[in-house]
């Protein structure tokens, strides 16, 4: 490994150097392949493993082949320390990853993103004193890396707390001004740092001030954004973490870090935009968080009234229908009623009734939320039908059961140009012959608006927690 194979720019190149760089190249290409495969349903799982293999390779070769400027490998004492830290972190990461309930996924992703951002910021902090004064380009890159990493860190923590319902939104125009002020302060500070002739070594405090300001900005940036917009925000912060890692890669001249980071940065940005588009909103709209604010105004009085129905009536209606479509929504996730709905579905199917689920792409609070939820309850994949496919069939459906969904079946999106969700594609529930809606009460959906579907003549309500309602309904049908 230490055999010298040549000289490059005045430094002896050993076999170890060559192999290390080669492994970084391979790792980087594995990231590209992995991400590519991750974006097709059939190969997604393999793609994840490819990317993981790339990461493992880069970690192992760094540990055993890295040489410091004097050409020494990592000493055994440090190797042991590395081993301990990595072992502990891996165990914790593994256990958390395996144990946490599927429904907590968005929270988990945001927590892991926070750790990545923090690690990037710490690396930038620690490398800062070694930078050469006057090497403006590199200083700029590392300051940027620090800022972005720290924002990704604190922003992700706030996102996590919001998703978990631990903190509420903090709205108001003063937040906008505060954010702007903070950003200007950070910028001014950066420029001052760059221009001051003092070497980075002699003003380490600078980096800590910057770190603190950046963490603060991360918090105040995410604070005013609506809790339900967190998936989009996490995707954005995820892109930031990638960019921060790439900045660190720039400083180390490390190809795997650069490519991995930038790839995630670019992909994350695109993903953020795609997610916004699927909800028919713009990114600025999400960040400024104006959604739902002026909503009530455009609402007309709804003609008709809300009509309840008894459990027995619902049971009879379902039991004597030919085909049933279930529209699950966020409420199903809240009630954790995925297993109960599967029970109802099996019962109906066993009676020869055709049961399908209509899956809206942004039902729930993260893309694919319903797929994950129902998959957890072992609902067969072929019963899940996508919005575009099921819509034309709906006029022939005997009973459509809305379970904890609201916005995704709101007809205003189609016919009320004043509605804040106007233009969003929906599941056209109102076309079915009979509609049963399960919800707890008069609660509104994510967009905070009224839903004319509930006032429809064909609609009957079944109030109560979705899990209980479904349970009772199932028993009722069984007794028939």
């Amino acid at each position: 490994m230490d055999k010298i194979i040549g000289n490059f720019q005045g430094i002896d190149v050993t076999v170890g150097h060559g192999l290390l760089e080669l492994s970084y190249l391979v790792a980087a290409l594995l990231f590209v392949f992995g991400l590519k495969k991750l974006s097709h349903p059939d190969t997604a799982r393999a793609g994840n493993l490819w990317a993981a293999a790339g990461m493992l390779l880069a970690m192992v070769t760094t540990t055993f082949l890295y040489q410091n400027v004097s050409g020494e490998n990592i000493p055994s004492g440090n190797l042991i320390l590395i081993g301990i830290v990595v072992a502990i972190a891996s165990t914790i990461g593994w256990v958390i990853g395996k144990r946490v309930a599927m429904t907590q996924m968005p929270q988990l992703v945001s927590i892991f993103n926070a750790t990545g951002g923090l690690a990037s910021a710490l690396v930038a902090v620690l490398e800062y004193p070694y930078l050469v004064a006057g090497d403006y380009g590199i200083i700029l890159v590392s300051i940027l890396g620090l800022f972005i990493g720290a924002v990704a860190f604190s922003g992700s923590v706030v996102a996590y707390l919001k998703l978990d319902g631990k903190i509420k939104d903090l709205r108001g125009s003063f937040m906008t001004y505060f954010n702007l002020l903070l950003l200007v302060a950070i910028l001014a500070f950066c420029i001052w740092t760059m221009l001051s002739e003092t070497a980075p070594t002699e003003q380490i405090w600078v980096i800590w001030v910057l770190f603190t300001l950046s963490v603060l900005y991360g918090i105040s940036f995410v604070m005013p954004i609506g809790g339900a917009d967190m998936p989009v925000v996490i995707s954005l912060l995820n892109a930031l973490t990638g960019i921060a890692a790439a900045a660190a890669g720039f400083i180390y001249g490390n190809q795997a870090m650069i490519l991995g980071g930038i790839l995630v940065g670019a992909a994350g940005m695109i993903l953020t935009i795609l997610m916004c588009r699927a909800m028919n909103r713009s990114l600025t709209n999400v960040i400024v968080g104006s959604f739902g604010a002026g909503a009530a105004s455009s609402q007309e009085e709804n003609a008709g009234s809300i009509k309840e129905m008894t459990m027995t009536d619902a049971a009879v209606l379902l039991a004597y229908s030919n085909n049933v479509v279930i529209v699950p929504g966020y409420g199903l996730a809240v009630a954790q009623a995925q297993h109960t709905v599967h029970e109802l579905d099996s019962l109906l199917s066993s009676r020869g009734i055709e049961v399908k689920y209509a899956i809206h792409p942004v039902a729930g609070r993260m893309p694919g939320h319903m797929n994950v939820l129902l998959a957890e309850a072992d609902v067969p994949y072929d019963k899940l039908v996508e919005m575009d496919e099921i819509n034309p069939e709906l006029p022939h459906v005997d009973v459509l059961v809305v379970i904890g969904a609201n916005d995704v079946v709101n007809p205003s999106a189609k016919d009320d140009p004043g509605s804040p969700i106007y233009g969003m594609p929906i599941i056209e529930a109102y076309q079915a012959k009979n509609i049963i809606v399960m919800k707890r009460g008069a609660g509104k959906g994510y967009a905070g608006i009224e839903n004319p579907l509930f006032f429809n003549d064909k609609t009957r309500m079944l109030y109560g927690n979705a899990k209980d309602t479904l349970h009772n309904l199932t028993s009722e049908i069984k007794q028939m």
Partner: protein
Amino acid sequence: MEEALHFFYQYRDVIFIFALAIFLGIEVISKVPSVLHTPLMSGANAISGVIVIGGLILVGTANLSEFSLELVLGCLALFFGTLNVVGGFVITDRMLEMFKKKKPTK
């Protein structure tokens, strides 16, 4: 301006790699179906844990003979980076497993 030009000249290969990677990232992702958004986000998140290499280098070159803030922070960076990587890949795999095992029934 001259500073910037010199910086560019010095790092032109790396900057070029940056540019190509941005393109590639956009190209690769731009046609992903909506159900895969969350797993993809999570997988990308795991990849961004590549910063762990920085943590490895920091701890690997740290001076162990005395206890320092630097050492502690380095270990933290390594710790959090590893957490991101391992946790990220594990949960992505779990999410995707759900899709996978149902597929054949189709």
